[in-house]
């Protein structure tokens, strides 16, 4: 889920650009600066779940690259990812976790990969993913598939789609084991106010 969250925010600007330019130009220009807030709806299909799980909430992206997922339904949960660390706070279950991304194993490696997207290190993406994009009228789709022969067999396939309305996007992440997460996202705000919210939620997740 966290993995999906990262992809969602990271690839959001990528998708917008892909509609306007060729892939080479897209990869050269993918970089997202500034703060933004999104409302989202999430649908997850888990291998061990009998039916799809639905959640909704807000996602916030900070200028320093931090990402916060504030899940509001079915219950309030905060998930934060800063440059080095992940935080998790579930007030209902009173579960609070923190982990260094560098020590978080495969999930940490994926987040590092997506951070390189944010920072514009496209050479790392090109070495691990194949990029294809399709345009049908006003609708577009950008698909990223792991390059065959990579050691990481658990790498997901990512599909981002949208239309002429840049504030709405759809992201689908399919895991290698069949699980999937789909996000419908609508940008709701940007600017300094978002940074304040990020700090407040970060403090809550840390426990201060």
């Amino acid at each position: 889920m966290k993995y999906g969250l990262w992809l969602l925010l990271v690839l959001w600007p990528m998708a917008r650009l892909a509609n306007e330019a060729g892939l080479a130009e897209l990869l050269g220009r993918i970089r997202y600066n500034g703060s933004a807030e999104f409302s989202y709806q999430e649908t997850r299909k888990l291998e061990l779940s009998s039916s799809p799980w639905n959640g909704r909430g807000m996602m916030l992206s900070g200028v320093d690259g931090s990402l916060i997922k504030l899940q509001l339904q079915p219950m309030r949960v905060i998930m934060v990812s800063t440059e080095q660390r992940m935080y998790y706070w579930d007030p209902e279950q009173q579960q609070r976790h923190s982990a260094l991304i560098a020590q978080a194993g495969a999930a940490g490696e994926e987040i590092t990969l997506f951070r390189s997207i944010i920072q514009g290190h496209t050479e790392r993406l090109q070495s691990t993913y194949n990029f294809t994009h399709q345009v049908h009228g006003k609708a577009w789709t950008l698909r990223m598939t792991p390059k065959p022969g990579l050691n990481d067999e658990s790498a997901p396939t990512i599909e981002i789609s949208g239309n002429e309305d840049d504030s709405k996007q759809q992201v689908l992440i399919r895991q290698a084991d069949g699980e999937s997460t789909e996000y419908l996202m609508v940008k709701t705000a940007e600017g300094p106010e978002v940074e304040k919210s990020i700090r407040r939620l970060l403090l809550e997740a840390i426990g201060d």
Partner: protein
Amino acid sequence: MSFVWRKRWFLLLFPLLLAASVWQIRVESDLNVFFTATDNEDSRLLSGLLKSGELSRRYLLVVENANGSNPGNEAVHDASSLSASAAMDAFSAKLVVKLAQIEGVENVWAANEPPREWIDAIRTYAPYYARLFSLNPRQDGSALFDPDKLGSRAEGLKQALLSPQGGFVKAIAKQDSLLLSLNGFKDMQNQFQRQANLNSGGGALILQSRPAALDSDAHLRLQAAIRASFDSLNQSAGEKFRLSMAGVPVFSVAAQTEISRDVTLVSVASSVAVTLVFLLLFRSFSALHWVMMVQAASFVLGTLATALVFGYVHSLTLALGASLIGICTDYPIHVMVHCAKHRHPPLDAVRLLWPSLAMGGLTTIIGYAALGLTGFPGFEQIAVFALFSIFASLALTRWVLPALLAKSTLHSAHLPGIAAWAGFCGRHRRGLLSLFATGVILAFFTLPQLRWMDDMQKLAMDMDQLKQQDEAVRSHFSSIEPGRFVLVQADDIETALRRSEAVERRLIMLKQTGILSEYHGLFPWLVSQDLQAENAKVYAQALTPQFQEAWRAGLVKADLSLDKLGRLPPPIAEPLRPETVLASPVRHILSGQIIEGQNGAVLAIWLGEHDPVKLAEGLAGLEGTRYFSQKDQLDQLAGQYRDRSLLMLAIGIAVMGLFILLQQRNIRKVVLTLLPSVASVLFIFAIWSLMGEEVSFLHVIGLLLSVSLCVDYGIFFMDNRGENSDVTYHGIAASTLTTLASFGALGLGKTPTLPILALSVSLGVTLGFLLCPLLIQKPTR
């Protein structure tokens, strides 16, 4: 053989010996080899723990802001402290990656979180969930298998699957849907949580090194590499951070550095002092260079022989062996004093003095042999070194030195005050002897007040600054004390595991009463077959149709798959065996807790802060279990060394007396020969009693050495082979001076061992020298 050919052979063989020693010798600097005995099970255990114990090889690293503020010590409320905390995280993460690449680093991880390997290892326990969910299955079973709680547990599982740990939980839940296997690891999670609370700002790292803790050379390189990695990263970060290190290897490197300094200082000072005394006495550079060559050859032979016997030579043996130069020089000095005073050719003087020289050498060898038998491992090597060096020096003095000195001109060695003191003793013998007798009686009365040093720490180097740094670094870590733990022993691993589980149950109670802050046991990494069977039984009993139905209802309510999670199978038939666990990566996690013992299995349970007395009381009655304190063990060893040193002192004196008796065939002469050295030992003990000096086994060993040297003076004085007691006493005075010069140089050392030996030997030989003309009546031959 003619003198010419003796000289030629010596000049040919000496460089060859030197070359052979350089080629052949391996110099060892591992302090453990020198200081820790391995003659009983506990000593071997202590030695092993110091050498390669998991905790002994561990570095604790703390990265802090260079300005002294630590984000972990502040409430994280404002943007700047958040940013500082993030910067610290970023820096620590980069440092972890960089440190992991250093050769000699086994693993490095942030102290707040378990290493990734541990998490991966936990996953492998999922199939055995029904066999290791609790240390007290009957007690915990009622809560764990309460059907009313299954709804909330299913909901908890759902949330766990949706959390960032979803991948990890899913892999376990597919085999262990109740997540029972994680229950056993709950304590580990709590330990890391406590550590995280203690070090909320991050920056605390644990580095597991590969080299043995006391392999100072390897750790010197490793510490330099750690600092270099830190410096290069810190430079990129604008010098914002500083690094502090703690751990046993930090102390061992500091000790090694001090010892290396001492070795150089003592060797140089000893050689220079002996040379100066020699020049002062004989004023002959020609004689000096020949005598020094003889001593160098003796030193090289001693070193080679030691290397052949032990396979290596310890650097401390070389340092202490350097003081032997002063002793071995005695033999040529006696010869030269007689040459100079009587104008005898060297060969005649050697022939005349040879019986006394041989007996003097023999008693010195006996002294060193007794030293080697005190049980202190380093002294065994020094004894072998001394044996061969003294033997070589005697042989070279007898057969080669006359050839070398054939053309040297020696000046009369006149020392002011020597004849006057001998004369004074002769004139006032009666009065002085009365004084002596009174002194002896008083000395005996003071002996019961003698204070023995029972704390071996007092013999350790003064490292206050390092200790302060160590405390400061350890304040960032939830402490596990490296020197105190619980040892569980049994004939086989199964019994040992059963016993360690009993200990852990007791430790949990002690934790609840506040006697112990935390502990690291072996459960559930390694679980006895008995406890596995008991867990399985409790689980199987709980697995009623009602229970299974309640679980399925919970799953349905939480929208979880009945197909994949609804079946609760019976416990796996095959238990998890120790050999299976130890063949997996878990062996690295437990490597410091399973100790190879000669007699069965030995398990260690590490302890956090605790009250030693109450904890030991709390463990009373548990079979095969004892509280082990490294400090207590060392103190006990110090006591053993002391008792054995005293015994060896007595045996050494007795054996020397026996050999003198064989030569002299006169019991009175034997007593008189031994009396100056024995009396000086008595007086020195009395002086220490009156001064309140704490006497250790090293003091006793120093006195043992002084006896072996002083007895030589008695032999020479009693024999008086030149039939001129003034000349003989001059020879003794000259050799006393060289002994004082060489052993006095030991006093410059910072290692406490060296000044103690310097003081004991210097006091002993000085008093023995002064007592000779008083106690041994001027011989008239």
